[in-house]
């Protein structure tokens, strides 16, 4: 305990000395989040300075082993670091798919060379990664992917197309699912490979959504050479890694459901549309739909609280966790629908200052994708029906 106290004291003074004042200001826009990479985008030059200082101690990824550039902190120490950063309002120095996605996968499935080659640049924010999973003709049936990797001895030649690759136009490297074998079941013959996006034959094109511009891209591979040392895990066994990362991703997306903002939708409606003498929202039929939404939001929050408490109590992740992605994203869609009803036509503007550049309408349209990306609601229901309820395949 006294060790932890020492650690806290040292951390506090180091942070005081090294965290620039500008990095203690709350994040206001996407540009304030530092993603690193070869050509990092910044709203303030201190972002790189702050990242570099933290990276030097491995504190951009405090719990990764020191051998791979991480901080090597224990869970308890990492918690202290988080607390001390929160104390002064320090921003996260680096956010990246390398940290949240590829790193955990490499630590679990990568060989020693791969860890030593790829993890330190992630820690230092030097290489930005993107994820090459979905394909236009696969969709929910991810495993039926068709991007081919042909064996050429010491390397593969990759041909095919990916879609929904977030920030592919800004990433330096990609972790990518490719098909190395066509003969077995569709889940076999998938391999997990890494390659540089600057390799000749790689092109990307941003995707515009119904809500406007987006981080998503289409990515095309035309005879792209990939060295075999960049195959993670065994050839043909990439699906195991993919599943591991998908679960990871779903947990991230399911947090959509947690209502943001301080005011409830009901209170917002009351402010906007007025209440009668009894305190009831004037728009009576809308009121009951809002109440139903608030009710479900409350119950969903209780469910997340309960599952978290059970996990902490060592009871493991109960079956309720399987509904998070489904329920959370459907709730978020309902919230956005109701916001339009509450705000009225002024929320349906698309451009112009009066309409805040269509902020509400764009968020509404963007929310429609929540129940598609990271496993559609239908796929989630299939999973619950089969794995939790034990209902048989058709």
């Amino acid at each position, binding site marked *: 305990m006294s060790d932890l106290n020492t650690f806290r004291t040292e951390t506090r003074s180091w942070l005081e000395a090294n965290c620039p004042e500008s990095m203690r200001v709350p994040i206001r826009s996407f540009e304030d989040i530092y993603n690193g990479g070869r050509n990092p985008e910044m709203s303030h030059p201190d972002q790189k300075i702050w990242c570099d200082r933290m990276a030097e101690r491995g504190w951009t990824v405090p719990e990764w082993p020191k051998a791979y550039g991480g901080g090597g902190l224990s869970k308890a120490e990492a918690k202290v670091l988080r607390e001390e950063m929160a104390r002064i309002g320090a921003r996260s120095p680096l956010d990246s798919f390398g940290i949240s996605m590829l790193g955990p996968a490499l630590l679990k499935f990568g060989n020693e060379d791969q860890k030593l080659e790829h993890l330190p640049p992630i820690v230092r924010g030097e290489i930005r990664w993107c994820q090459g999973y979905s394909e236009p003709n696969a969709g929910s049936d991810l495993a039926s992917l068709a991007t081919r990797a042909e064996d050429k001895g010491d390397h593969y030649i990759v041909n095919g197309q990916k879609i929904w690759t977030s920030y592919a136009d800004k990433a330096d490297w990609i972790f990518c699912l490719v098909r190395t074998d066509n003969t077995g079941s569709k889940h076999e013959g998938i391999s997990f490979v890494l390659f540089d996006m600057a390799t000749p034959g790689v092109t990307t094109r941003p995707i515009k959504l119904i809500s406007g511009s987006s981080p998503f891209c289409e990515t095309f591979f035309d005879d792209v050479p990939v060295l075999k040392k960049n195959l993670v895990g065994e050839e043909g066994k990439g699906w195991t890694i993919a599943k591991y990362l998908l679960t990871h991703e779903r947990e991230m997306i399911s947090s959509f459901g947690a209502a943001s903002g301080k005011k409830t939708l*009901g*209170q917002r409606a009351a402010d906007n549309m007025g209440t009668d003498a009894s305190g*009831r929202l004037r728009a009576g039929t809308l009121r009951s739909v*809002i109440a139903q939404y608030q009710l479900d939001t409350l119950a969903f929050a209780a469910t997340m609280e309960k599952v978290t408490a*059970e996990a902490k109590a060592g009871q493991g992740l109960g079956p309720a966790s399987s509904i998070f992605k489904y329920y959370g994203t459907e709730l978020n869609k309902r919230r956005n629908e109701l916001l339009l009803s509450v705000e009225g036509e002024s929320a349906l503007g698309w451009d112009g200052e009066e309409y805040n550049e269509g902020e509400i309408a764009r968020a509404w349209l963007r929310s429609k994708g929540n129940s598609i990306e990271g496993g559609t609601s239908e796929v989630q229901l299939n999973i619950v*029906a089969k794995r939790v309820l034990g209902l*048989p*395949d058709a």
Partner: protein
Amino acid sequence: MSLVLNEEEIMLRDSAAGFLAETANVDAFRKHRDNPPPAGFDQALWGSIAEMGWCGIAIDEAHGGLGYGFTGLGLIIEQMGKNLTVSPFNSTVLMAGTAIAQFGTEAQKQEWLPKIAAGEVVMALAIQEGSHFDLDSLSTSVSAQGDSFAVKAEKRQVLDAIGADAYVVVGKDVSGYQAFIVTADQVSVQDQSMVDARSSGTVVIDISLSADAQMDPQSLNSGGLERALDIMNIGLAAELLGVSVEAFERTVGYLRERKQFGKVIGSFQGLQHRAADLFAELELCKAIVLKGLRAVDAGDDLGGLASAVKAKLAQISQRATNEGVQMHGGIGMTDEYDIGFFIKRARVLEHTLGDFHYHLDRYALQGGY
């Protein structure tokens, strides 16, 4: 307030489950339905329940209870829901017991709570007047006359009215809510059988009562009545949870076995998606009921939460029991099969002390809109 059961609570739940599944299960309910005992409940079962100490679980030790709290009580009630157990437990322990603890005088607590805790008395709550529970429209049925009170009221939908030894009667006069403890000899009761084969009745009171029958007007009118009703509604929601989960589990079991068109019907995606969505809703129900029970034990403000819990369970219990019948098909419509019992019990529980719409409205009001 942690939304996880501790070991002791899990043991309590499991032992209640075991006992009820053996002695007060759905078969026992069917026998009760076909041949109801005169008092409206099985005296032997009631004796066993009392022996296990369940009646005193939420009553504090100073008044003869175990002081274990409402989470434990809720776990027991949930199991009663799963088993469709018939007993005057809700009316006596959840309803009258809570009312006396919240707005009884100290003398009344000393007199009645130990008897409730010991299972020595059967009590009922007489509050509703119209065909819908509505706290705002209690008629002025009580009037003070010097030291005594002329109480004149016709109370309806009094659960277990016929078997009760005493009643907590809640009314209103110009000064606000008034409540009294009245014994069986002071009222006349008209018994009715409800759709769930439980006994409910109309209680007519027309009597002059001395001051010691009066419950504490101060507690009653400073939030005590609302809190008592909130606790009762959370308890009723716990029973609805048991009813819903049991109906759902029986239905999923049926989906796994029943064959149509050469396939197990549980393999049809149309039914799978409905079952999976309902599963999600039931997980929400489990969490919110536990949250409600924990909030009671923590002494938290209950207003909006209690109505949220009751509304959510009212709604999902309707869906779970309706889907139960529909997914069972024709056999689900027959009286011989048990699934229909759940739809009946769920609806009566929903309406007791305010249905879905009553509580959704109240939840919204408490939320400021």
